[in-house]
């Protein structure tokens, strides 16, 4: 394991899962139990309002309980475990395990599969070709563009903004079709492997430049919509060091795995994170919007150096390694231990669990109308929060 060590916490807390706590350069066993979402006791005049697990307006099954006197949200709890999946990944080959990893969260398959592949390459002490590294950056940024488009599209829906919502959906579909043409699959399934990536980069520049141009006009128009801005500004304010991904960067914290990545050379492409200080739903939307345009610039630079190939996994059969990727929601981390080229242990840490905690804390004191805007601004995926690898 070249980039991480077991030991004392170093730097900011990234998340915990499966008996470990993760920090940017270290993994700690015997973790301190994270805060569990528990709703407060009702006071006279307050009542509990249950939303979910299966309900309209949500993409996935999730149980949300509100404590309210009728309008203000006194307290809220989120239960992502209704659809808890137990996925068997141990004592399987690297390739077979990859099939399951891809299906933890298909919408962010590139992030999960590249983080897992990086962990395996670390364990086997394999150095991937430079062209593969830049091709993976292209894949991750394409995924970020699509994911951020979905978040903003979903934020338009509760405002009744049909025209911008549909135009954002059009751009998102164009990215999906580009990914399909480049990899054969609309969600990158089957395109990333330990040691490589299979992707045809020929149309990427033309399509992404067009999307950046169209999105910039849409974004400018949204910023002029007072009705929309009123729903976002001061909605779900939160600013703590423990935030991840766009939520952190919307609070002025430069938390971004692309800055300190040991395996993907983002800094060589001149990357620096986009920061805002509003700490609210509007700031999270600003960060995601500007990251769409930034991702197109990153892709343009990475394309000059990218190539599609697969490196040999070498002669090692045992080892332990870790991989960390900045997914569209924040840090995705994988730890693997290999014995005879089979997976003896796999641990995944997703940003969605941390973001659920941040959402809960940000929602208190808001009103019901704020809920959907604020929820969508965090971009939480229950499929990666409610999963256990066994």
């Amino acid at each position, binding site marked *: 394991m070249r980039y991480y060590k077991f030991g004392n916490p170093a730097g900011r807390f990234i998340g915990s899962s499966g008996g470990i706590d993760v920090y940017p350069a270290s993994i700690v066993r015997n973790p301190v139990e994270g805060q569990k979402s528990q709703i407060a006791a009702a006071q006279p005049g307050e009542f509990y309002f249950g939303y979910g*697990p*299966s*309900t*309209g*307006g949500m*993409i*996935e*099954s999730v149980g949300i309980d509100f404590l309210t006197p009728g309008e203000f949200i006194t307290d809220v709890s989120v239960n992502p*475990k*209704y*659809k*808890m*999946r*137990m*996925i068997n990944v141990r004592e399987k080959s690297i390739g*077979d395990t990859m*099939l*399951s990893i891809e*299906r*933890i*969260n*298909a*919408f962010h398959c590139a992030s999960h599969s590249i983080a897992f592949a990086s962990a395996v390459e670390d364990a086997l002490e394999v150095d991937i070709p430079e062209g593969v590294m830049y091709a993976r950056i292209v894949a991750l940024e394409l995924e970020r563009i699509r994911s951020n488009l*979905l978040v903003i599209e979903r934020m338009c829906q509760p405002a009744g*903004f049909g*025209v*911008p919502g*549909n*135009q954002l*959906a*059009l751009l*998102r*579909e164009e990215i*999906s*079709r580009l990914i*399909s*043409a480049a990899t*054969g*699959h*609309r*969600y990158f*399934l*089957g395109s990333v492997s330990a040691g490589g990536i299979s992707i045809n980069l020929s149309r990427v520049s033309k399509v992404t430049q067009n999307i950046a141009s169209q999105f910039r006009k849409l974004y400018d*128009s949204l910023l*002029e*919509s*007072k*009705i929309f801005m009123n729903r976002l500004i001061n909605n779900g304010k939160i600013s703590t060091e423990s935030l991840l991904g766009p939520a952190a960067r919307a609070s002025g914290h430069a938390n971004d795995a692309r800055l300190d990545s040991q395996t993907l050379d983002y800094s060589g492409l001149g990357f620096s994170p986009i920061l805002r200080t509003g700490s609210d739903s509007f700031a999270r939307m600003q960060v995601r919007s500007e990251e769409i345009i930034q991702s197109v610039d990153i892709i343009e630079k990475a394309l000059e150096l990218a190539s599609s190939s697969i490196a040999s996994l070498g002669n090692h059969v045992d080892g332990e390694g870790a991989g960390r990727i900045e997914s569209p929601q924040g840090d995705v981390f994988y730890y693997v231990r290999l014995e005879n080229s089979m997976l003896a242990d796999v641990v995944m840490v997703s940003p969605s669990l941390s973001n659920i905690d941040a959402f809960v804390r940000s929602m208190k004191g808001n009103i019901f109308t704020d809920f959907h805007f604020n929820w969508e601004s965090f971009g939480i*995926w*229950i*499929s990666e929060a409610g999963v256990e690898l066994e």
Partner: protein
Amino acid sequence: MSNLWFFNGLRKGVRTERFPKAPAEAPPQWPSRLSGSGDAVCPVGAIENGVWDMDKCIFCRRCLTTYEPTGEQDIFTIDSRVSLFHRSLYLYPLDSGSCGGCNIELLNIFTPYYDANRLRIFITNTPRHADAIVIMGVYTKGMEEPLRLAYEAMAEPKLVIALGACAISGGIVGKPAIDAEKYNVKIAGCPPSPYTILQALDSVRGD
């Protein structure tokens, strides 16, 4: 400002495809109908005795080059149609334990390129108003009761639709949410493409 959005919408023009009356403009290769014969390595047993079973297939490409994708999107089976739903079809989506892929592709059929509303296909937020329940994902204990309650809340006649390999066979990550024989419609894919979903839903309503 409302005028601006109005003109924005007009300027874009009609972007909706004519599918399923016309061929799909951008059909994905994976998933699509596979063409080939003979045995091949398959992690989910979708190829046995030289026969490809689209319901089990997770379209992982392990069987390339014995089997090749055709781009054809008609990878669904309909066991029973309900002509009562010819004028409109209201769907209640239920995520029993999915990776989110099927959820997004189902939402995508209501976006401009596909626009399921033009075919009088709609989403409803309550099973009381639903003609069909669309089950996505594998079996999970926590969603067993919500699935049963949603099914019982639907009025007769009703359809049960399995969306994706996980719901039909369990795919590669679990077991199916309900027994395969209880489904009226099985839409294959991992996840199924919007074209496949749209064509299956358009076909299920009978004459």
